[in-house]
């Protein structure tokens, strides 16, 4: 098959960037989307042009490295799928595709389709952890977790931090990501000690990074390759509201070691 691609090309963070048209010939329907781009890039390299930059690593939908917007949809038309797992058989011969990077102030474009998602790392660092005692490993089943909480935590933990939620959100909000992390730890007994602080700090960090605010639109849930549900955002809201009014602020108010 043969495709027309309109790709966002931007040399560097300071370059204004623009859409450039390419023809992808000899596209095999069994190729993944990224393999198709690899082939286009080979041709570009042979012609002495700069290949299209895009992120990828595992190419099996588990690392969260890949991702860009295809015809206005983050990770393309197939639900619950990263671009690396999206196959060309999903498209028709002669299709015209627009490829754009994630768009958000907190995700500055580094080059072409590659954005800097360091903001996510800083949101995680703000509270996406639990404190564990050092020393010998605890008994396997010493802490019991109800099955439904274990399932909820696992579903939330499936988030690979790709950033599609931010890209799809009309508010460029990182709520689905932040809430997935808060839910993942917040429904487990091990996550309780920091639960209130976690909600306060991660929410504050996401705001400080310049992400927008959630208005319950639901585009994030629709494009999430791991199908994280909007329910996690309600859980984050609940944790945050409760913490904001009841947290006694041991660490911030006293300026102690905490």
């Amino acid at each position, binding site marked *: 098959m043969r495709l027309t691609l*309109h790709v*966002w090309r931007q040399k560097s963070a300071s370059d204004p960037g623009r*859409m450039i048209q390419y023809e992808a010939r000899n596209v095999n329907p069994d190729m993944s989307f990224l393999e198709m781009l690899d082939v286009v890039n080979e041709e570009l390299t042979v012609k002495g042009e700069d290949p299209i930059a895009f992120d990828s690593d595992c190419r099996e939908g588990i690392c969260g490295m890949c991702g860009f*917007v295809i*015809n*206005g*949809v983050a990770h393309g038309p197939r639900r619950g799928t990263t671009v690396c797992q999206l196959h060309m058989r999903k498209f028709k011969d002669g299709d015209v595709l*627009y490829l*754009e990077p994630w*768009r*958000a*102030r*907190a995700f500055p474009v580094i080059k072409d389709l590659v954005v800097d998602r360091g903001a996510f790392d800083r949101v995680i660092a703000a509270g996406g952890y639990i404190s564990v005692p050092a020393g010998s490993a605890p008994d396997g089943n010493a802490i019991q977790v109800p099955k439904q909480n274990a399932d909820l935590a696992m579903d939330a933990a499936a988030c690979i931090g790709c950033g599609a939620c931010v890209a*799809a959100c*009309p*508010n*460029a*909000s990182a709520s689905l990501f932040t809430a997935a992390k808060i839910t993942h730890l917040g429904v487990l007994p091990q996550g309780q000690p920091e639960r209130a602080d976690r909600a306060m700090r991660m*929410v*504050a960090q996401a*705001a400080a990074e*310049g*992400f*927008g*605010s*959630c*208005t*319950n*639109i*639901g*585009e994030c*849930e*629709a*494009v999430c390759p791991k199908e994280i*549900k*909007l*329910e996690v*955002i*309600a*859980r*984050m*809201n*609940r*944790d*945050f*509201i409760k913490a*904001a*009014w009841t947290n*006694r*602020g*041991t660490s911030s*108010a*006293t300026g*102690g070691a905490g």
Partner: protein
Amino acid sequence: MSSIAIDSHLHKAIRFYQASIGKKAVMAVTGVVLFGYLVGHLAGNMQVYLGAEQMDKYAAFLHSMPLLLWSVRALLVASVVLHITASLQLQKLKLDARPAGYVKKEAVDSSLASRSMIWSGLMIAAFVIYHILDLTTGAAGAVQFRELRAYENLVYSFRRVPVSGFYILGMVLLGMHLYHGLWSIFQTVGFSHPRYTPVIKRLAAWVAILMAAGFISIPIAVWTGLVGSNL
């Protein structure tokens, strides 16, 4: 000695509001107040079908308790101010959060109502201002405006086609705004459950449609002569 320093309530409230989740919670709570008012307003309006006497009696009844009337009005104005202020601040956050947009952007799975809240909200605000000038103070009312003659004022006002048109448009937007707003209240304050949320969404849709239909029925009743044919 305890090392815990407890924040003052004011400090907490300010910090809470500074977070976008706090602003949304304020929108949810004020939204509940405004929704409560709409239910009462619709119930009052439906008395138009009981005739002029009943309608005017109801208007006089409301005005017979000035303290209560003005307390409710004050609560409503405060709610409207908070609701709009928070929404404009969130809109600014939105605009700041994505300085460069997409060449192509597709809405995959979201309602038009959810994506147009700011616009439906601003249109409703404009409508409410006109509506008060038209039917409460009479400043923009029909020539025949007479204070507390609610029934007559309403009939003469709705006989003007552009006024009815604006009213109907406003109520359609109100229905959309209510649908997304009503179920969002639950999501925003932290209630979401795979069993109940779909029910809440369906109920929100029905309440929104019924309320919009109730309001819209009035100008239609005036046009068709069901209401006010004796005037």
